[in-house]
């Protein structure tokens, strides 16, 4: 979906998909921090915006990110650990579904948005998830 050109930096990962992650301040962001503290590696094209709760993500933000140049959006949800909302997973799922409806209207593949529960110590699961997501997005471009 994104027009690609060679990067000005020779060894830059030209085909590395740009991934926007929505994390949460208290739960998934500490898990992502832990991945960094543990020097776990994933693509530098993965960037994070942290919010209080993924139930606060607007479907329009997901669409905006994809239309502006991100190749995928990953929702690092709190799952059952959300400190605010006991039904956070269901709410976040509805947000993803609403975003996919908006995406379908614009011809954007629904698999460009992905959600998984990431806990405060889920360093390895986060790394695995975003690597896998980056790979699947790259495969879509191939």
């Amino acid at each position, binding site marked *: 979906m994104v027009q690609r050109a060679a990067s000005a930096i020779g060894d*830059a990962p030209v085909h590395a998909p740009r991934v*926007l992650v929505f994390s949460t301040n208290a739960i998934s962001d500490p898990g992502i921090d832990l991945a960094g503290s543990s020097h776990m590696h994933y693509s530098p094209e993965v960037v994070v915006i942290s919010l209080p709760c993924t139930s606060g993500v607007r479907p329009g933000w997901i669409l905006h990110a994809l239309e502006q140049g991100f190749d995928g959006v990953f929702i690092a949800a709190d799952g059952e650990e959300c400190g605010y909302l006991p039904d956070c997973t269901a709410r976040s799922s509805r947000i993803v579904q609403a975003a996919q409806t908006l995406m379908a209207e614009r011809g954007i593949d629904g698999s460009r948005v992905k959600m998984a529960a990431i806990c405060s110590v889920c360093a390895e699961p986060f790394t695995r998830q975003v690597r896998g997501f980056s790979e699947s997005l790259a495969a879509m471009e191939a």
Partner: protein
Amino acid sequence: MTTAPLPPQEGAPDPGATPSKRRIGVYVCHCGGNISDYVDVEQVVAAVKADADVVVARDAMFTCSDATQQEIAQDIAEHQLDGMVVASCSPKLHTLTFRSVARRAGLNPYEYTQVNIREQCSWTHTDDHDGATRKALRLVRAGIAHTRLSEPLEPTAVETVPRVLVIGGGVAGMRAAVGLADLGLEVVLVEREPRLGGWVARLGTTYPHSADGGDLVLRLDREIRRREAITVLTGAELIAKSGTYGDYQVTIRTEAEPITFSVGQIIVTTGFDSYEPAAGEFGYGIPGVLTLPEFTSLLKEGDGPLTYEGRPVRTIAYIYCVGSRGEEHAYCSRFCCSAAVHSALLAADRGEEIRQYHLYRDLRTYGRNEAMLTESRRRGSLYLKFADDQPPSVSRDGDGLRVTVRDLLTAGEEVAIAADLLVLVTGMLARKNPELIGTLKLPIGRDGFFNEIHPKLRPVETVVDGVLIAGTCQAPKTVAESVASGLAAVTQAAAVLKRGVAELDPQVAVVNPSACTGCGVCVDACPFGAITLVGADGAAVETEPALRTAVIDVAGCKGCGGCAPVCTVDAIDLRGYTDAQVRAMIDGLLVGAAR
């Protein structure tokens, strides 16, 4: 460090930004190399210097240092900054530090944005310096975009309840209860077991001051009984928590009816479990193979010559690091080396002729405990070091035990020890407590213990507001260290509660009344009851939607933002995370996309 130059389109000023006449200062931290070993900090600063609204941009070796804080404050005054971006470590560490800098210098603290270029950039892209530098620039630009749309916010002051719930009646919790009461705060001390004291109550002589564990607990128990401000509930557990920061309602299950208290802060001191070796692990299960707590109990019995099951003990072997520093439990419990050496001294007191062999991987008798190690060697203890991949083997030998080890200190020679007792020097495990974790939403670290925000800077605070941790629920600790952390939690709790008021985060939801249609969907979406529908006179009404507007109670709103996406007309925004700010951040993250 330097990396390849940024691509021209990234190094150029942010072309997408619309100048907003803001005056923003940007500070990018080297973190002493933690960031600048992987991110070209100077390039990032040079790139954003010309960005719209950026009045000053600097790098600093440590932005959190007093000197840099002072420089930032001077910049705020001299350049009349109305926005600030600090790109350094995780927001969990220094958000309060820099909010305080802003406040001191006359800048509203909520017009500052923290950008995480350490945990989420330099440390996770140590393999790609150019990629890390490009990413750091994108993150900083998103921070600038966020700050450009920031607005001054003021916290809501709420009265706090001068009462603390202490969960766990071990030595850390007991000492904390006494400390809190002495500062004029009421305490509810909850213990799951029928009596207070925890592990320490069962200990005999402890190190380094040879105090008796049972006596220590008795003294604390007496002090607690002397203080009317302390309510002790034994055989009790926390089962529910609600309310807001500074005024939580906690429900305690007791042997009688559940009791609900209002408390201003909660201190968790739930202690640890001791590692229990598997059957056969270093011979565990063979008579004469004991764990360290079992050996401590044996030493506590009697004061004559040491015996085990009626037979005199002439030779003791110790194997260190049992259950520690392996695949399942990778951490070191720290206390157990000193505890084993101390036990060897107590055993020597029971008979100087007892031969004692210590089989270790590494010895960590830190601080004053080093003197105990020297003393144990003077009194005949021998120390043999084994390789990580060549642990000792243990077998039955008649009525005794045979412990075989390859000693690295004697050129890897195999040594066989005929022992009457073998002590497996076991460490501490995080106690399994899923109900408490679920109720308080306690954060857990990689090793399973509860996680503080920062081990040095905020050692007893958790990411859950008003919930503090102390003692061995946080990490393996000695008795003295547990008591010290309990007192640190006392200081932290009292610092909030003695003021009588707490500040609630002003980053709460807000309704745009001109856009609100009064449909009420948001009311149903808020489980905290913070949203009401009011008529033109501000009174709650149940009338047709067109005549009413949603209003959010700032003290009741938790700031989750869950109401914003359900609003069909986008009339709700979460302050600090507004629709415009998040969209601007997304755009900022894509500035100069090298595609």
